[in-house]
């Protein structure tokens, strides 16, 4: 697999970092010249995955979140968000629309949004060990128009 560029970030699971994480990935993605809509989708998907690590992986403590973004062949932006938190016992159930263990403050739509805003979503998790969410989105070539 040909990786043309990448970034790696590590930050504590503080909610103030949600905005930083999505902006960092959006700034990195800018070199692919995405449309406003593509950029909006990327920011939203990153926000969902990072929020999950903050809210669900480390519910009563501050843990570490690792974020990696890379540009693969064919203008594919791949984003990986990893935590060493409590993990997901039943991934299939967790990914159902409206399913949440977070009560009234959550909507249960995070995975549904990640899935529809990217081309590929993969979730790997082990209870007590942590969760890795990998998303890929191809950025289309725009007609230069000049």
């Amino acid at each position, binding site marked *: 697999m040909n990786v043309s560029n990448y970034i790696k970030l590590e930050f504590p699971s503080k909610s*103030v970092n949600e905005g930083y994480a999505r902006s960092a990935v959006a700034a990195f993605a800018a070199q692919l010249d995405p449309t406003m809509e593509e950029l*909006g989708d990327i920011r939203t998907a990153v*926000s969902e995955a990072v*929020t999950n690590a903050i809210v669900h992986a480390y519910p009563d403590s501050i843990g570490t979140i690792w974020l990696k973004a890379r540009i693969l062949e064919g203008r594919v932006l791949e984003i990986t968000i990893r935590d060493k938190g409590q993990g997901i016992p039943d991934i299939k159930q967790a990914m159902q*629309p409206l399913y949440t263990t977070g009560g*009234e403050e959550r909507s249960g739509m995070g995975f*549904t949004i990640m899935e*529809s805003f990217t081309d590929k979503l993969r979730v790997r998790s082990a209870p007590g060990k942590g969760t890795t969410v990998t998303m890929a989105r191809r950025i289309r070539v725009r007609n230069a128009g000049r």
Partner: protein
Amino acid sequence: MNIASAYENGKLTLYLQGELDHHSARTAMRAIEQELEQSLARECVLDMSGLSFMDSSGIALILKAHKLTAAQGGKVWIEHPSRQALRVMETSGIERIVPIAQETGKE
């Protein structure tokens, strides 16, 4: 995230400004609760023209605002969402519960 409000003839308009995510949702919810309680509004508009970002935390907030207003015998709707916010709302199917006003007039 910041919320400004206006009240007129039983209609409360809440102008959501900035980025609505999990980090800002709790403060935003408290502000909305207070406004609704004080005004006892029958109609509540969430004006999103100043909202530069929203994720699924915003969906939970809209549903809560809907519940609170319904408990006062009123209704909530959304006005002027950005394309990004609209995509999040469409994906979550929230328009079936809280209507999104169609833009009128020209660009």
